[in-house]
Structures are given as C-alpha cells and as structure tokens.
C-alpha cells in the first residue's frame, strides 16, 4: 500500500505510523463538565468504524515527520481525497 504524504508524495506504508481517525480533540477546559464528558467519551472510546471513506491521521515517521490527514476508503484501501497537512 502506498500513502500520499503531502511533502514527500506517494510512499510505502512501511514508512508511516497510523494515528487513527482524524477527530477534533474536544476543547479542553479545566475540569470535566457534564456537557463535555459525552463528547470526550465519544472522542476516546466511541469511534465510528465506517465501511467507506474515513478521515484519518498518518505520521511519516521514516520521512519528513509530518502528521497529516488523509481520507481512505476502508473498503478498497484507496486514498480518495487530497491530503491536508
């Protein structure tokens, strides 16, 4: 499998580490609140496992060391959208 790094272009999977779904970290105020706890639990535990496009984070560990977001179709393992650094 090849992954499109925004800096280095298409490179082998072996050069990357996986960072999971690219979810926005819920805004962090000091202390948990009833309003933010469900959002936090969703962020940490209740993640979707879609059969289809998934925005996810990749780290080009053996390359430029950039974390970037790429969209991959989990059914075909095809990278289907432009990556955003």
């Amino acid at each position: 499998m090849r992954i499109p790094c925004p800096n280095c272009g298409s490179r082998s999977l072996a050069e990357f580490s996986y960072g999971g779904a690219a979810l926005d970290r819920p805004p962090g105020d000091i202390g948990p609140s009833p309003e933010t706890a469900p959002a936090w639990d969703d962020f940490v535990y209740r993640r979707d496992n879609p059969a289809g496009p998934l925005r996810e984070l990749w780290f080009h560990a053996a390359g430029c060391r950039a974390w970037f977001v790429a969209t991959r179709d989990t059914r075909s393992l095809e990278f289907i959208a432009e990556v955003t650094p």
Partner: protein
Amino acid sequence: MTGWRAPTGGRIDRSRTIDFRFNGRAYTGHDGDTLASALLANGVDIVARSFKYHRPRGIVAFGADEPNALVEVGEGSRRTPNLKATQVRLVPGLVARSQNCWPSVNFDIMAITGLLAPFMPSGFYYKTFKWPVSAWPFYERLIRNAAGMGRAPAAADPDAYDSVHRSVDLLVIGGGLAGLAAARAAAQADAGTRILVVDELAEFGGLGTADTAVVDGRDYRDWVADAVAALSAVPNVTLLPRTTAYGHYDGNLVGLVEECDGPVRQRRWLVHADRIVLATGATERPLLFGGNDRPGVMLASAARLYATRHAAMAGRRAVVFTSDDSGYEAAFDLRQAGVAIAAIVDPRAEVGEALKGRCAAAGITLLAAHRIESSHGRRRVSGCTVRPIAGGQPRRFTCDLILTAGGWTPAAQLFTHAGGRLRHDPALAALVPDATSWAGRASTGMIAVGAAAGVYDVAGCLASGQAAGRGEPPLGIGGSEARSPIVLGGTGKCFVDLQNDVTVADIALAVREGYRSIEHVKRYTTLGMGTDQGKLAGLTGVAVAAAAQGLAPADLGNSRPRPPLSPVTFGALAGPFVGPLSSPARTTPMHGWHEAHGALMANVGSWRRPQLYRREAEGDLEAVIREAGNVRRAVGLTDVSTLGKIDLQGPDVARLLDHAYINGFASLAPGRCRYGVMLREDGMVLDDGTVTRLTAERWFMTTTTGNAERIHAHLERIRQIDLRGLDVTITPVTEQWGAMAVAGPRARDLLAALRPDFAVDNEALPFMALAEGRIGDIAARVLRVSFSGERAYEIYTAAGDALAMWNTILAAGTSFGLMPYGTEAMMTLRIEKGLFVPGFEADGRTLPDDLGLARMVSTKKEFVGRRSLRRPAFVAPDRKQLVGLMAVDRTQAIPRGAQIVRDLGGAPPVAMEGHVTSVTYSPELGRWIALALVAGGRAALGETRVAASPLTGETVPVTLCPPVFVDPEGERLRG
C-alpha cells in the same frame, strides 16, 4: 510404459543428454526438457498416488495447472517439496521423488484405503477426526504421513535468496501473444514508459498460440523473436523470464518469484505498478467420465504441447474426447507427430463441416453426440467405453491415451486477489474477469487481455493486448451464443479435483447435506484446496455443485482465489534477511566491551543489552545478586545508551511539555531535571522519563528504551495537531548520545576521581540537577538522577566518545569497588524501590493513581489524558493498585505472573484480585519480593493473600506491603 520420444522435432537439444533420477531410478532426457516431458519420453506413467484413495496417477497437464505430478526435488538441505514436475526444468544430476506415495508409486500399501472408498465420503476428515480433541495430534500426523504433503528439509537452507523492490509504469504478467503485444504497444506509444514483462517460462511466447499460427502476416515464432528483440532494445523495458507472479495486493503491489541460476537461487520482486496488464492465458478444462483419473488420461492441449515442444509423446494410440474445436487441432497435430487417433468423441450434436472434412481426410473416426462413459485399464489406460449421448449401445475402443478438451477457462486467478471479480460468461461457458471491478479505484486494478480475458483468437489477442498497452479501455468480449458445455458424469468414480481426490459424488453428497455456497462446498469437500489451487478443478466443481442444486453455474458464483497463486518458498519470502539480518539489532557503543566481558545479551525492543556479566563458577542468579548488591554497597556502572533521547528547542517547549506530561514543566529552572509521566488520551500511563532544562530554550528529554519512537511521534502529534502553532523543534537524538549510569554510595567519590572540570559536591550537583563540562578530554553531560534509589549520575557523551568514557570510569573505579551491572540487576534495584516500568506495571490499563502517582497529576492545566481520569470507573476504590509483596515464609520465592487470590478455600472459580507484575530476589532484604497490581491494594496493606500460579502449581501466601522496599524516605539518592 507407453510414452516415447519422437526421433525429430521439438525444441530440445538432442546433442545434450541430461542424466537425472526419479524415485531412485536413472533416466536420461535432453536440454530443453521439463521433468514431466522427460518422464513421459521415458515411458514413466505413474508419478503419484492420490491424496485420499492412493490411486495411481499420471501427468495430466503441461504447466501450473498440473494436479498430480507433485515432486520433491533435490536432496538434504536443498530438498524442495510441492513442485510440479511440469514446471521443473531438467538440469544435469536432478534428483526428484514423488511426493504422494509410500512406500513406492508402483506398490502403494495405502491403496488398501481405496477399498474403503465408500466409507470415506466428503467431510470425511470433519466427521471422523473431530473427536476426541485430545487425539488430534495423532490424527494429524497420520493424515500428513498418508497424504504425502511433502517434507521440509531439516537442515538450514544453504542457498542465497535475493529481494528486489521496483516501481514501474506498466507491469505485463504473461509474455504470450497478448502480453507481448501490450508491451510493444506501450513502448511504441512512449519509449520512456518503464515496463516490466514477466513470464513463468524460460522462453517468451506463451503456450496458447501455436508456432505455426500466422500473426501480422508472419509465423508466430518469428513474430515473438521480433517482439523480444524490439523490447530488449528499449532501455526502460525489462524482460523477466522464469518469473511467476504469485499475488496482487492493494495499491497494485505484485509479488514475483524469479528462478535464478548461480549463487542466488530465487529472487523475490515486489513491484509497484501504475498499470497492470494480465495476460496469463487460459487453462483447458477436463471432461469428466468414470475413471477419469487413470494414468493415460490427459488434457488434449498438454499432450499436444509435449509433442510439439519436447517431442515427448504421451502414448501411441489416443481417443480424443472434446467439446471444443481446439481438441480437433490437438488430434491433428498429434497424428502428424505419430500418435494414432483411434477416435474423436464429441458430445456436441453439431460439428463444423470443415472439421468433419479434415477428420475424414485423415481417416479419423468421428463420433458426434457421443461421450466417453468410462476408461479401462489396470495400471493405466488400455481402453474406453463410448456411448451415444441419447443412450444406446456402447462401443469399446482400445487405446493407451485418452485426451480431453472441455473448452477453456481464463487463468485469471490473479485478477481476484485484490478485489477484482469474475463474471460467468454464458457464451464462453467460463468465468472471465469483470472489467468493471475496479470502478472508483485509482491505485489498484488490472486489465485482462487475450485468453485471460476469454479472447481465444489470434486477431483478438493481438488487438486486446495492443489496446491495453496503449492504456485504452478493455475491448468487449464474448459472443451471444452459448458454447462448450461442460459434460458431466459417467460410470464409476468421476474426479473433479484430482489433487484432493474430490469426486462428483462427493460434491453431490455435500449439497445433499446442506452445503449450498460454493465457498462452503469447497471447504467441506476440500475441492480446489490443494497446492494447484484448483486451477483445473475450479469451474468444473462449480458446475457440478450448481447442477446438484438445479442451478446454473452463474447463479452459484465462484470461490475467490487468494494469494499465493502457487506455492512460494520461505527462502524467497525471507530473501537475504536471515540470520543476523532477520531482525536488525541495535547495539550501543559499548556492545563489544559487553561481549568481551561475559555479558549475557538479550533483546530489549530492537536493542541488544547485557542482562548480566557472568563470572566463573557463578550461577546467573548469583551474578545478579552480586551486581545489585554491589550497587547498594559500593558503586556500579551500567550502559543506558538505549534510553530514548529527544532534543527540544524553542520558546514554546514548556507549553509542549505541559501538554504531554501530567505534571508541570514551566517552572523548571535551567540546570534542573524533572521526572515526568505521560498518559494516552484514555488516561492510561504511556511512558515516563526525565526532562532537563539545559538553557531557557533548550531541553533534553529521555524516554524508556522501548518507547523512543512512539514518544517522538506523540510529541510531534501534539505540536502539529493538538497545539498547532507552537515554536518548538523536536529532534530524536537517541543514536547521537552514548549514556552510562554510575550508581551507589561511592558514585560521587568515583565521579570526583575522574577529575571533571565541574564541581560534583552535593551543593553544586544535587539530586535532579545537571552539570555540563569535560571529564578528562571528553565533553559530558551529567544528570544527577537515579533509577536504583542510590546516589547516581547518568553520564551522556557523544556516541563516539562513550566507549572511552566507559573505560575511563572502569579504570578509575577499581579502587572504589566498581562493577558493571546489567539489566537484571537494574530490574532488581528498581523493584526494591517500587519504580514502575511500562510493559510490566504500566501495562496499558493502569492510571497514574493506580501507580500511586495521584499527587503528581496537575489540576492547573490541560494535558493529554486528563479528562479521562475522572470517569466513574477510573476513580472506583477497587481498582487494581500497585503494592509490594513479600512471601510470608521468607525462604519462599514468589511465582512470576501469579494471580493474587484471597485464600485457597472455596470452590473454583476463585475471584482473582490482581496479579504479580515483577519479581526479584532482594539482596538488600535477603528474601524474594514482588510488585503486584491488587484490587483495593493500598487499603489492604498488611493483609495476607495468596500468589497462585496455575502454570507451575505454586501457591505462596504473601503479605501486601508498600511498594518501596528500600529507603522509602529517599535519603540515599539525595545525600
């Protein structure tokens, strides 16, 4: 013994005779032979015994679809099992042996199981060998011995294997007419196109087109020679003969194995291709009749190829059973080569006038609307019974060869590996690649051309190959008229899968027992699950299973072939990465010294580290006790170069660290170190280490050995994603620094004796402080930190200086009682101090509070994992907490990995309250101690539990105690 060699013809070099041995007997062949063609020419008709019934079997096919002639080639450490005789090139001195026979092919004691055949129906293994489970190892050995699965060599492989990665614009798999046409068209369109053409045979040209066919107005042989010459002249084109593509993977990665001569035996290629053209040809389907497995029954195309390529004749007198016009061509060619044709039997009512005329001209008996019902013969075919399709009187023919031609199936197995689909084409009566499979996929896909796409005529192969080579969409194929019906049945055993001994009756029984899906029928009957991957059996099996359910084959679908297409040796997969290269070990600058001084080395993550230093007449445990005790009494030296080291620079480092660690770093003054703990977002402890502020904007972090890469990625993620905009530069410098720890009550005296150009007294260099300067002529960074609980210093130098520093310290240390110590003593010392380690105590399920770190957790800032810590389950009082354990009987050891239970009374299952995480003998306490995670452990200190190890049968009463066994006030490390 009826095979023979024609005196002329074929592409063999009769001037070069090759001696070889098969099943212990000496034979001769010629350069250009395969093992199969040489065996045929020598009249060897039985090459194997069948898998289940041990029936005699002969050579059936010409290439990779051969189901019977499985052989082991070579001897001793070079013995290779599971090769097909049809694919083994004859070389001088070749030694081969039938795989499926014991004690010999001609007298097979297991043939007695043939008498049991009625009692070995489908699912036999499922039903018979299922119970009792305890007997499985016995059954498995029995089956494997009887089944002749091939023997792996016992000795190490002496040969070298190579591994190549390649990216190309176009990969053409199959160098026949269509494949060569594709490559030529691509090269002509753009000479810069990087093209790789592979073919499993030594010569390009493929098997599907006769030498005498006319292509572009020339004989095919000449056309091939031109194409190969033209392609060889293009610098960007690589032609790889004797190379098999075994798998197609996502992102158009294709695995190839190249057979080599010389020092490298096989070369594995991993090829990334922008475009792939699949030109793998087609496989001839057999026709079924009773006793269709008897030696002497063969594919018509195979007999024709053996005759035309190798002048090897499979028999003297043949009956040709064909439902496809190609069977007639085979008959005419064989007759030309000297094989008498007793009859052509065609189940079709209508036979073309031209074919009828040619049969008549050649004096060949043609029986249309007839079928072969059964074969006869003891060791091999001696005749057959033919009957009209509509019924009626049978006719018997005497023959030593029955050739079947049931039409063609595209050899498109590779098409399905990465998600391509096959569709049933009624006009071709075959499964063909579905060109729509790859819709919406930009990086994976292939275009099938020629016979692999169901295109069987010369003009069509040429056109489909050229179109694909130019990057045009695939041409439409298939007509409207249904043809080549698959003929089923006969009297006696009709074999669908010759390699796995699956008959028509077996499949019908599976269907009667409720197996419907072809994937289930396949697994239940083992249809198509042999090393030939059902190349011959696949479609016929589908047709039989469909008929048994009253369905059309198209309605049943097909089982999906998966990689590898053909067996791949472990040698090819491993390539050169064996022995020390199999998992490259990282070594520290002091590695050579460790090895020269009795170190017992162990793998720690990717590193090699000394566990302990052995001395004469000393057991390993004694060595650990000596090394650890010496640190507590005098001073020790240990190599900590493997610690992860990260250099951090910029005005915003403190903000980054505050987000990464549970404790705060903004207040850390230059020249000081601080211990820190990191969490994952789910609140679990990720890692620990120290951070030293070198100057206002330059920091130095250490991580645990195994987590260096993970923490680097983690910090970059915080910098680039969570807190975008921080001005921080993160540089991993693990390899740039060598490091060693000097620990023990005399550590400071020793450090002073090294005459550093900086002060080392407790005022100038207190606990958790930094000193930088020179020790002798070596620049060093000294951190007063301790992982042993003793007064200790970590000394960092440039990696190139580390060994010199190590030796300097050793030389100066003699008068202080210095000894080196390894990772085992380091573990002993940290367990005595109750210090947790990721992987042992911090096992991915432990929170800071579980480890007694609650007071470290800042409440004044946001950090990774903070908001998980207040989840209700994470503040429950019965969480497993870190405690120390001492055996009640101080002479007893505590079993490693033991479960903690309340007592030994009561009936199982017993509630497990925790588990032992680390065990050591404590030289300081003179007894065994342990760290454990125990539910509600901190509230139960002083109570007794039982450490129970079901693995060893030990049950040891233990007392729960605080985890810090030595110097709980920390006076030693601060003093």
